[in-house]
């Protein structure tokens, strides 16, 4: 196994994989088992002010399934910790004592200015390596907290500044994607003194509604709510936010990527997009800590294959290839290409091309094969999405030299 360590905001992480501040980082006992499997650090479950008692609704979570696929997303109403502060502090101390090489990040959320300061000092005393300021929980029942702070940029700056003035530890600001442009609050956090950004927290969503009782299916005794949605379904949003943050020159802060990573490939994508560490929760909810074994092994093999010496060498490698859409060279056009010798004749490509695509793909009903038309095809590629034959795919994109952009013909 390769050395997977990486330095992030001046702290060394044995692996870039972190348990994020969530139900999966609720106790030292569960975190310790995660460390043994390969997590390099933890953002410990967010501690809130002791003056506000957190009582969680029941049930707390709901899986979002798609066909036979379970847990492509999770809607949850978890808030900050509901354990006594004393217990959490003891747990953090125990972790630092027993896993001195692993990084423990103290995630905090004050419900008043003083609480931000007090919590920061408390977790610093407990021996954390970093602080993460939770400006992003999308469903706090406490007025003016969580995501509400993350959407009020001056508060992001103010609370970050309070913590900055309180201690010297590296500070991460954990931001919400539920804003128009995530780089704005990030710049405010930087002004307040943040050393890095964690992005993203869960996205506000509604997993479903009961068809008989008309209550959302995260049904808390007859009531539902819009709340945080996570898992593989939000990975594209997480990647987007990481890219925006990484490409923002004025920001220039290291990023902890978060949102839907489950496999080593997801993790590498986060690294390529500019994240230095990857946090996860839903993957652990779906599979348990064992997912990280595969992330470590897969990342190590990937580094061997590509000749990367350290994890840091992967960070941001995709950024030069990510542009505004206006930068595309539209003078070059292609079409979907079909390896008809391997076609099995299901005809799904024809259906979707007719009903949702360029209406270019014909159908030979005797032979049960599609009839491509390179000129009419406008390369939306939806035919390839539904083609069941792989290894290699039957339908691929091909460049067609001199082809003009296709335009759908008017009705005759």
């Amino acid at each position, binding site marked *: 196994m390769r050395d997977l360590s990486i330095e992030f905001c001046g702290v060394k992480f044995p692996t870039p994989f972190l348990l994020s501040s969530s139900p999966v980082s609720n106790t030292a006992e569960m975190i310790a088992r995660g460390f043994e499997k390969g997590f390099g650090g933890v953002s410990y479950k967010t501690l809130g002010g002791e003056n506000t008692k957190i009582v969680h609704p029941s049930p707390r979570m709901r899986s979002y399934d798609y066909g036979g696929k379970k847990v492509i997303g999770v809607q949850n109403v978890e808030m900050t910790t509901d354990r006594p502060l004393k217990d959490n502090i003891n747990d953090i101390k125990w972790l630092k004592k027993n896993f001195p090489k692993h990084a423990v990040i103290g995630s905090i959320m004050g419900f008043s200015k003083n609480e931000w300061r007090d919590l920061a000092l408390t977790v610093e005393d407990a021996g954390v390596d970093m602080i993460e300021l939770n400006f992003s929980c999308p469903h706090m029942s406490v007025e003016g907290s969580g995501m509400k702070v993350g959407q009020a940029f001056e508060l992001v700056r103010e609370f970050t500044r309070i913590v900055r003035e309180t201690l010297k530890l590296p500070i991460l600001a954990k931001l919400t994607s539920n804003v128009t442009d995530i780089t704005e609050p990030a710049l405010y956090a930087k002004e307040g003194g943040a050393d890095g950004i964690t992005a993203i927290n869960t996205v506000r969503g509604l997993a479903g509604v009961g068809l008989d009782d008309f209550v959302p299916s995260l049904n808390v005794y007859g009531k539902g709510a819009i709340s945080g949605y996570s898992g593989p379904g939000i990975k594209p949003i997480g990647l987007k936010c990481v890219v925006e943050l990484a490409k923002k020159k004025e920001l220039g802060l290291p990023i902890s990527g978060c949102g839907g990573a489950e*496999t*080593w490939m997801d993790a590498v994508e986060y690294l390529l997009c500019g994240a230095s560490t990857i946090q996860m929760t839903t993957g652990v909810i779906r599979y348990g800590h064992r997912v990280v074994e595969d992330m470590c*092994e897969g990342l190590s093999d990937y580094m061997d294959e590509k000749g990367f010496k350290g994890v840091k060498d992967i960070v941001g490698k995709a950024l030069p290839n990510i542009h505004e859409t206006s930068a595309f060279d539209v003078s070059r056009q292609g079409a979907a290409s079909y390896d008809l010798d391997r076609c099995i004749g299901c005809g799904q490509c024809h259906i979707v091309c007719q009903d949702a695509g360029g209406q270019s793909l014909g159908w030979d009903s005797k032979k049960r094969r599609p009839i491509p038309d390179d000129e009419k095809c406008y390369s939306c590629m939806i035919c390839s999405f539904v083609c069941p034959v792989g290894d290699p795919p039957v339908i691929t994109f091909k460049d067609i030299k001199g082809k003009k952009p296709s335009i759908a013909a008017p009705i005759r």
Partner: protein
Amino acid sequence: MGKTLRKNNQLTSLFDMEEGYSLTQAVAEADRCLLCHDAPCSAACPAETDPGKFIRKLRLRNLKGAVRTIKENNILGGICAVVCPAGRLCEEKCSSTEIDRPINIGKLQRFLVEYGWQIGFNPLLKKPANGAKVAVVGSGPAGLACAAALSKEGCEVTVFESARKPGGVLRYGVPSFRLDGDFTDREIKDVAALGVKIECGSPVKGRGAVENLLKKGFKAVFVGAGLPAPYKLNIPGINLKNVTTATDFLKAARAGNREKISRLVKNKNVAIIGGGSVAMDAAGTCKALKAAKVYCIALESMRELPAYKDDWLMAVDNGIIIKPQCRVREITGKGGAAAGVKGVETVWKKPGSCLPSNAKDVPGTEFSLAAGAVIIAIGSGPDRGLAEMMPKVKLTGRGLIQVDKKTLATSAKGIYAGGDAARGPALVVDSVADGKKAAGSIIGFLKGAK
């Protein structure tokens, strides 16, 4: 590897080994896996293969890791995936059987091993040389598994094989349509890549030949000699022309004069005596060689048939007629060659035993079948030369090599044995398990001897 997709279980030639999964198919199948805690499939493998882990790795797209999990544990992971009766082992224990059909673990394992070959990924690492030379007698599954495990530990291993090519029963006992030569060669290449020297055409024979290896600089010897001597049936007509054994027949189909073997059965009715998987293999081979009617005459009832269900189902799908609970009394001849068999239906005298001595003829059920060739498939026994090859090593009453079950040490110091030669007829995966176990004991022995 240019395999064919076998439609409706139909055998079209001797060589159409079934196609394996593609990546897409493997991922779809892995998606069905329940990823059980303390996976029952993993506890069911005699050779400690861990499907629970390699399927999870595949599911989480850690493909190289999945190949590593298989091959580090079992150097013959590909071959086992192909020949193992998984339905009686890992797949039988699959939790998914409670709600659906089991996960096709065998095909997933085969896919991963072939995927590793395809991308040129070899996960096996070798420890630095420890200076100890070890000899392995026989290149069947037990011998190869032992050799690979010893080589990984840093031993200098030489395998002595009497046949022209390595593999033992894998090459000469299993028909190509189940496991072909290319596949076997490719997996043995992984053994050779660990530095194991395989010397083919080098039989260890003559008085004390095994023990003499210890005097020739080898610090230990592992004997995996298999069961090369087919049992014969003592009935009238057994010495007629066109009467052969399944062992000889399958070997000839793999490596002998294929035209001659084809002539033996082509357009003829063939009677196969036996109801085990080897009988089914012989029957399938007959069908692939264009035999007319093929009968498998078994003493057992269909429920008791020793053949694995997949094997006899494939036989039935290919038109082979299984005659259960029958006994052949005589092979009839014409002009010195087999012309048919005469037999009778039987019942058991007492329930619970499938021994021939427990079978009782049922009067009035006598039958005769026309058959131009007869193949005896009632099992095989150990090499009758074992006693001479290693006079200091104790054999059992059946002529098997007597070993300590925990260590697989024989009665002679430094000589270990495993696989069919020590345990009697068993699965390939049991032989692999023995090879690994013996290697562990040999490493311990070598350390003690220093």
